[in-house]
């Protein structure tokens, strides 16, 4: 009987406990904070569009790179004997001797 009374007393004390008067203000602040985070998050379609455009740009770059074909003709090397143009004899002192 005494223990039952103690249980009642224990429950009564818990029932008399009151929450912080600013609890509702705290909850509202938390909800507003969560809403701000939600608003800052970009929607799914935006994230998808960004991912698709990056993939498309990479694919385009690779295909343009692959489409480049080298010219078949070998490089020409200019091999001109310009001895007649330049008066090299002057330097060799051939003509001044």
């Amino acid at each position: 009987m005494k223990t039952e009374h103690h249980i009642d007393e224990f429950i009564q004390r818990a029932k008399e406990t009151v929450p912080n008067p600013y609890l509702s203000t705290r909850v509202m602040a938390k909800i507003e904070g969560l809403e701000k985070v939600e608003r800052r998050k970009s929607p799914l379609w935006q994230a998808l569009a960004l991912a698709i455009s990056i993939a498309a740009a990479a694919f385009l770059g690779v295909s343009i790179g692959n489409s480049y074909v080298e010219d078949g003709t070998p490089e020409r090397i200019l091999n001109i004997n310009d001895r007649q143009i330049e008066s090299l004899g002057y330097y060799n002192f051939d003509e001044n001797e």
Partner: protein
Amino acid sequence: MSDEQLIKEIISGNHAAFKNLMEKYQLQVFRTVMGFVHIKEDAEEVTQDVFVRVYQSISSFHHDAEFSTWLYRITVNTSLNFLRGNRKNRLLQSLEAIFTYRSEEKTPLEELEHAERDRRIRMAIDSLPEKQRMAFILSRYEELPQKKIAAVMKRSEGAVEQLLQRAKENLQKKLGIP
């Protein structure tokens, strides 16, 4: 303003309406949570989580049951989830409660006895099977009629009566009442 009107206002984005709803129900939520967690600071934290969940899911409330019944369900589930995630902390807190219990009218020995008795009662309530504990807390802390408890727990009134009876017997056994 009725609950239904408040809910319509909340869904249309009126924050003040949610604050009104919260102020209307915060004491009953807090009391129920206290039955589960027993510590004021924890009860405040859980109450806060309950209302955040209510705000996030209020558009899914279809008036199949009364708003208060729906709110009690969220409260009970949030409290049980909190307890599942805080088992270790709770043991430390119950020990701490023994050493920090203070009363001006009692001698230190009486204070210690009182704290120990509270701890035993708390442990006995906490060790009840989940459904029995839910029924017990809603009945004793919130003084809800069996019909309402049955609606919250989605059980028949007879089943709730049995749960309450078993909870009482279990508590008597655990606390050594003949």
